C-alpha cells in the first residue's frame, strides 16, 4: 500500500471537515439551547466564585506558581521523542538493523537525560 499514488485529498479529508463542523455546531447548539431555556434568577451570591462558602479574599487573577514546570519540560522532551518514534515505527521494517541502531542512539541519549533528571529529583513530588 505504501509508496502508491498520494490518496485523493477530497475523499480523505472531506469527511473530517464535515465531522469537525458538525461537532462544533452541536456544541454551539447545546450552549445556545441551554442559555435560552435556563431561567435567570440570581441572588447576589450566585455569581460569586465557589470557595466553600468562605468570603473570597484577595485578587483572583494573580501569578500562580506552577510547581511542576520540570514535568512540563520533560514532557516536551519525551513527546518530541514520541513524534519521531511514530514515523520511525512505520519505516522500521525497511531496514530493521539500521533503524534499531539509529533509534538506539537516540533513545540512549534520552535515557541518559532521564537518569540525570531522576537523580536530580525531578520525579519527586511533595
Amino acid at each position: 500500500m505504501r509508496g502508491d499514488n498520494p490518496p485523493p485529498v477530497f475523499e480523505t479529508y472531506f469527511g473530517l471537515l464535515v465531522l469537525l463542523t458538525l461537532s462544533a455546531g452541536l456544541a454551539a447548539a447545546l450552549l445556545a439551547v441551554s442559555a435560552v431555556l435556563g431561567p435567570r434568577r440570581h441572588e447576589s451570591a450566585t455569581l460569586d466564585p465557589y470557595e466553600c462558602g468562605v468570603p473570597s479574599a484577595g485578587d483572583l487573577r494573580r501569578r500562580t506558581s506552577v510547581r511542576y514546570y520540570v514535568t512540563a519540560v520533560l514532557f516536551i522532551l519525551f513527546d518530541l521523542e514520541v513524534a519521531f518514534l511514530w514515523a520511525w515505527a512505520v519505516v522500521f521494517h525497511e531496514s530493521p538493523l539500521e533503524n534499531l541502531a539509529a533509534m538506539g542512539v537516540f533513545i540512549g541519549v534520552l535515557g541518559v537525560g532521564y537518569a540525570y533528571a531522576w537523580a536530580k529529583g525531578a520525579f519527586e513530588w511533595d
Partner: protein
Amino acid sequence: MSLAVLLAAKAVVLVLLLLNLVPLLVWVERKASALIQDRVGPNRAGILGLRFAGMFHNLADVGKMLTKEDIVPAGVDRLPFVLAPALGLTVALAAAAVIPVADVWSSGGRSVPLQVADLDVGILWVFAVSSLGVYSIVLAGWASRSRFPLLGALRSAAQLVSYEVPLALAAISVALCFGTLRPNEIVEAQGDLVFGALPQWGILLQPVAFVIFVTGALAETNRLPFDLPEGESEIVGYHVEYSSMKFGMFMMAEYIHVAVASALAATLFLGGWQVPWLPTEALRTHAGPVLAGLGAIGALGGAAALAGALRLPRGVTAPRSRDALAIGGLGLAGVVAGLAAAATGLGADLGPGARATVAAAAQALAFGAKTLLLCFGFVWVRWTLPRFRYDQLMRLGWRQLTPLALANLVLTAGALAALGELSR
C-alpha cells in the same frame, strides 16, 4: 456529488453513534455501580409508565441540564469560559473519525471504507486530536477566575501530560509490529494467525503495551483511579464554576473520550473489526451461514429479553406491567426478526452487495462487542479501585509506566530486527 453526500452521511452517523453511546454508558455506569454496591440503582423516571430499568433517567438528566440556570459567574473571562466546554466536546467527537467499524465494503467496483476518514496516519490523528482536550480543561480552570478550578486545572494538566507519553509509546509498540499507522491495515494484520492457531491480536504480541495503554487511557480520560482533575467527591475539580449544559458537556466529553479510548484499544489490541478466525473473504463467501448466525444471536437476545419480561410482576395493576409488556414485545420482535434473518441466510441466495453487507454487519458487531466490553472495564475499574494520591499518580506515570513503555518498545524493536535477520 454523491461522494460528498456519502462522506457527510458517515460523519452524521458517527456523531449520532457517539451521542447515543453517552446515555448508554451513563446507564451502564449507574446500574453497574448499583450492582457492585448491592443496591437497585435508578429506576424511577419513566414515560407513560415505561421505565426500562432506569434508561429514561438519562433523558430526564438532559432535560434538567438544559433547563437549569446557565450561570456565568461575575469576573470570569467570558469567551474562554464558554469556549472550554464546546472545545472539549468537539475534540472528543472528532477523535473517533479514523476508527473503522468494519472492513472496507466493496462490491461491483465500488468500495466504501467504513470510517469517516481513512487516513494513513490514522492512529496519530486520534492522539493528536484527543489530547487537545487538555486545552478545554486548562481553559476552563483559568477562565473561571476562581482558586479551586485553577488548581484543579493545573493538577489535570500535569496528569494528562504525564500519561500521554506512556500511552503513545504503547501504541507505537503495536504500530511497530505491524509497520503502519493506518487503522484498517493494523486491524487487517491482526487477522493473521500465529502458530497457525491464534489470531495475531495486538494483545497477544504486546501484552505489556496493552496494560500500559489501558492504564494510560484511564488516566487520560480522567476516570478513577486517576480522576484527580475532577475529584467530584472531595477535592474540587476544574469545572466547579460550570452549571447547566456547560457542565453536561464536560460530562459528555468524558464519556465520549471513554468510548473513543475503548474503540482505539479494541482497534490496536483486540483485533478491531476482526471476527476471530473468520477473515473478510470467508465472511463474504459464507455470507448465508453468517447471516443465519447473526439472526440466531438476535433471536437469543430477544428470547433473553422475553424471559426477563416474564419474570416481572404481571397483571394490569402490577407496578411494572407496562415495562413487562414493552420489553416482552421487543423481545418477541427480536426473536421473530432473528429467526427471519436466519431463515433468509440459510435459504436465499445472496448477491455480492448483500454478501459484503452481511460481512460488514458481522464485523461491526464484533467491533461493537469488543468496544463495549472495554467500556464496561472502565466502569468496573471505577467502582472497584480507590483513587490515587497525587504524588503516587505522578510517580506511577514517570517512574514506572514511562520507563516500562520505553523498555518494551526497545525490546520489541530488537526482537523484530532479530526476526527480520533470521528470516532473511
